[in-house]
């Protein structure tokens, strides 16, 4: 049971981080506008936004490939701390800022949710460190590929749905 919980935590966290990273790396999905609204210097927002997306991707990879490496958890907890800080900053500034946590289409706003997620990330790290599974390099890479592929499947469904809506709603003049 504990092993199952550990592996579940390991893969849920990896999937969330991979999804979040990919969403932020997509053109128009960057969190750069969020950072600008929080008051970060304009010259810093873009590199910072892409660093966060990159760090999330690396963390997802490390979580599956090297779950027993301390650096993996340092990186995840640093990201969690960054998310909590942005939430806390938005609360302190009394600003309603669109989160874009999981891409541009995320509707939630920055605030208590990000702060409350901090302990959840910590719990996930503890569970994975205690009962997570270390896979062979080949198997681990294959598993990461499977996670990304699953995200891709959801994307294909979304593209198809959007394409259908746009085709159905194509502006037409009666003749």
């Amino acid at each position, binding site marked *: 049971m504990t092993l199952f919980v550990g592996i579940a935590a390991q893969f849920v966290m990896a999937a969330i981080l991979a999804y979040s990273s990919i969403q932020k790396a997509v053109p128009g999905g960057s969190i750069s506008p969020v950072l600008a609204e929080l008051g970060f210097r304009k010259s810093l927002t873009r590199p910072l936004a892409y660093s966060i997306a990159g760090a999330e991707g690396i963390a997802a990879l490390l979580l599956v490939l090297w779950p027993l490496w301390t650096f993996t958890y340092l990186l995840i907890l640093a990201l969690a701390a960054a998310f909590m800080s942005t939430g806390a900053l938005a609360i302190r500034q009394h600003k309603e800022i669109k989160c874009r946590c999981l891409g541009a289409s995320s509707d939630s706003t920055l605030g208590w949710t990000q702060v409350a997620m901090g302990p959840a990330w910590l719990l996930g790290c503890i569970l994975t460190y205690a009962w997570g599974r270390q896979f062979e390099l080949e198997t681990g890479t294959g598993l990461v590929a499977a996670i990304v592929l699953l995200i891709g499947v959801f994307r294909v469904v979304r593209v198809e749905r959007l394409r259908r809506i746009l085709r159905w709603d*194509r502006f037409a003049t009666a003749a």
Partner: protein
Amino acid sequence: MIIALWVAILILIVAVVLLLGAQIELLEQVKQMRRVFGLEDGSKPIELPEWVGRDASEAGLPELAGESWSLVLFISNTCATCHTLADGMRGGQLPEHLWVAIANVRDTGHDFQQEFALYGERIIVDESAVIMTKLGLSVTPVGLVLENGKIQRCLTIPSLHQLDIAMGVIEGQITKGVSA
């Protein structure tokens, strides 16, 4: 060697997923632009004052006399939107209560009905647009709403989406006991 292969596969999958994400972003932008500039399709009513409340059989649609309610979609072989609508109904599998009247406005040199395989008991061929002319309709695609075989109203149906919406709205009105 195997690890290199897996890494290559992973990179390829990530690239494809990123491209799909970019496509989603583009499609969302198109959707947003259509909304902002008012380019989304909308249904408009068409006035048929002399026909409201009259039997559909008088207009040349005796098949609809026994129907509790129905929507007759008039499409013609000359309008581009009608081709899109017909393509969406290819094979003639129509939702319940939907009838299609194909008006062959003029000879275009090819068989519209055959092109989209529009055959079935709820598909009517309005040769030379006789029914449409009698009703005073000059545009397609339009939907004629009937309740108990009597004409209630008429509206433009510019897309499959609007057809879907119109069917839902009429059904809702009938269920609530409001006249369609």
